């Protein structure tokens, strides 16, 4: 059975071009880039090129790129470094719809380390309460960390505007751009951000490689303490193959940015309008005007998400209910709860997240499958009355 993959905000297929770029470095050029032999050095050169390509995607300087093992490590490292830089500042600020890599870290810092954590709320459309954010900025604030785009709803926060206001006050600003990268343009200079996180597996590079951008001149404290790799900013032998793959993926992402905002967006809009048209009692979550071009979070009243997913799965369709990271847990997604999405549709919310690999035929197949799945499930739901 053909797989229809619409779970790209969870993880993506490694692009063929990326695989091709990586392959020679497993069995052939496996040297350690810091080694004193040509063999290791050949890898070193490729890594420098990759670092440049990653930097290019976000308009940074190669020196500002630190390779990490994932978005979570990037997020954790950014916050840890800020707290080390300002050991006396006790307030840290984020939103209540962040990825667990920030949200759970902030809760840990609140509960175990006594930090004064401000969780800025969002409105029903998932947009941030900017007044409250600005009001909460204080001399005592060590860092503000806000995601550029939300993984569940695709809602985009106005990071350049926020970052300018925050950094003007001399407060460090970090953004989790794991979902934004490759989907909307990112320019770290224009946006005034001090630190920014990326994750390879969201942009067709392998899993297990991430990036932390750290603005030049900023004092940075390594989170993984060990050898001198990454100019002393991250210990651990470099994940050479994945770094090389990530470089290629960033190059491709830059090239494909226009496609995201035309072809992929059109497919997403088509899927959305078809589902709204063909199925009653359906609602789209998140600010429609202000959303990643590939993401559709959509709630079906009176049915439960896992059941829908299994019916999609039977047709080879991969999607997600809420965030992939919290599937396995029982609580409704914290993002939908923060947006006060009613339980009735929150439990029945499905996230379709597209990539340029998707086609219109696939969307049609999804719509057909959804119509029948929702019908079947509603027929047995005690909460469905029509």
């Amino acid at each position: 059975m053909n797989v229809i993959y619409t779970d790209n905000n969870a993880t993506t297929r490694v692009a063929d071009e990326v695989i091709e770029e990586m392959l020679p470095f497993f069995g052939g050029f496996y040297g350690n880039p810091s080694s004193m032999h040509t063999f290791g050095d050949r890898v070193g050169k490729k890594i420098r090129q990759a670092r440049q390509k990653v930097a290019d995607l976000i308009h940074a300087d190669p020196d500002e790129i630190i390779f990490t093992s994932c978005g979570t490590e990037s997020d954790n490292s950014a916050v840890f470094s800020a707290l080390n830089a300002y050991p006396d500042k006790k307030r840290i600020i984020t939103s209540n719809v962040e990825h667990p890599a920030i949200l759970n870290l902030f809760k840990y810092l609140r509960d175990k380390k006594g930090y004064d954590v401000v969780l800025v709320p969002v409105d029903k459309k998932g947009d941030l309460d900017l007044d409250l954010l600005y009001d909460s900025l204080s001399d005592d604030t060590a860092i503000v960390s806000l995601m550029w785009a939300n993984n569940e709803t695709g809602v985009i926060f106005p990071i350049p505007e926020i970052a300018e206001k925050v950094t003007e006050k001399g407060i460090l600003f970090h953004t989790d751009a794991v979902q934004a990268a490759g989907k909307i343009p990112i320019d770290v200079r224009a946006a005034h951000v001090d630190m920014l996180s990326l994750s390879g597996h969201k942009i067709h590079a392998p899993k297990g490689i991430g990036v932390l951008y750290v603005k030049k001149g900023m004092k940075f404290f390594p989170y993984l303490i060990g050898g001198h790799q990454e100019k002393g900013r991250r210990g651990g032998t470099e994940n050479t193959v994945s770094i090389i793959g990530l470089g290629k993926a960033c190059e491709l992402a830059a090239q494909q940015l226009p496609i995201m905002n035309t072809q992929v967006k059109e497919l997403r809009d088509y899927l959305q309008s078809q589902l709204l048209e063909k199925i009653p009692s359906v609602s789209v979550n998140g600010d429609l005007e202000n959303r990643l071009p590939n993401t559709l979070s959509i709630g079906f009243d009176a049915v439960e998400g896992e059941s829908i997913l299994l019916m999609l799965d039977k047709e080879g369709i991969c999607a997600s209910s809420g965030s992939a990271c919290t599937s396995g847990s029982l609580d409704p997604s914290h993002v939908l709860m923060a947006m006060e999405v009613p339980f009735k549709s929150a439990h029945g919310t499905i996230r379709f997240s597209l990539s340029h690999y998707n086609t219109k035929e696939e969307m049609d197949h999804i719509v057909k499958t959804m119509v029948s799945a929702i019908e079947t499930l509603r027929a047995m739901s005690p909460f469905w009355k029509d």
Partner: protein
Amino acid sequence: MWEYTDKVKDHFMHPRNVGELKDANAVGETGSLNCGDALKLFLKVDENERIVDASFMTFGCASAVASSSALTEIVKGMTLDEAAKVTNGDIADYLGGLPKEKMHCSVMGKSALQKAIADYRGIQIMEKPGEMVCECFEVTDLEIIDAVKANGLETTEDVTNYLKAGGGCGKCLDRIEEVIASVKAEG
């Protein structure tokens, strides 16, 4: 992903006895929309207290649907006294087992069944007696004690798997741990 048995998948994809039973004379409802799963069980009981037909309506995940479907199959033909002895373990066994994180679905089945029997007999079940422990899923200490004893639960994780309690905001986890400890202390 959960590892569902073929039996679970079959009962999810082809649920038996779905829908309202028009001439039901015993109905049991449990769960809620907020909790993420709910089951309404319909029984038709004859003059000898034998269950001659059963059906269900379920909102929930695959194992909730499968547990409901299994439950109706299990109880059909039983007397009410026999049905009263059906445990959540029987439901899980009928399905060849449930992932431990999904045991609460079988618990929901048993609970709906008890309520339907009570409904037929005209007994008013004291709704959730005891002290509320988990507000997210409205679970009391007595319910936790019952589940711990009946299923030999050991950790808060087990309790969450069986009753959902603790699987939401998590603020009740300490209290759940106390309750488990008190059961253990009793022997």
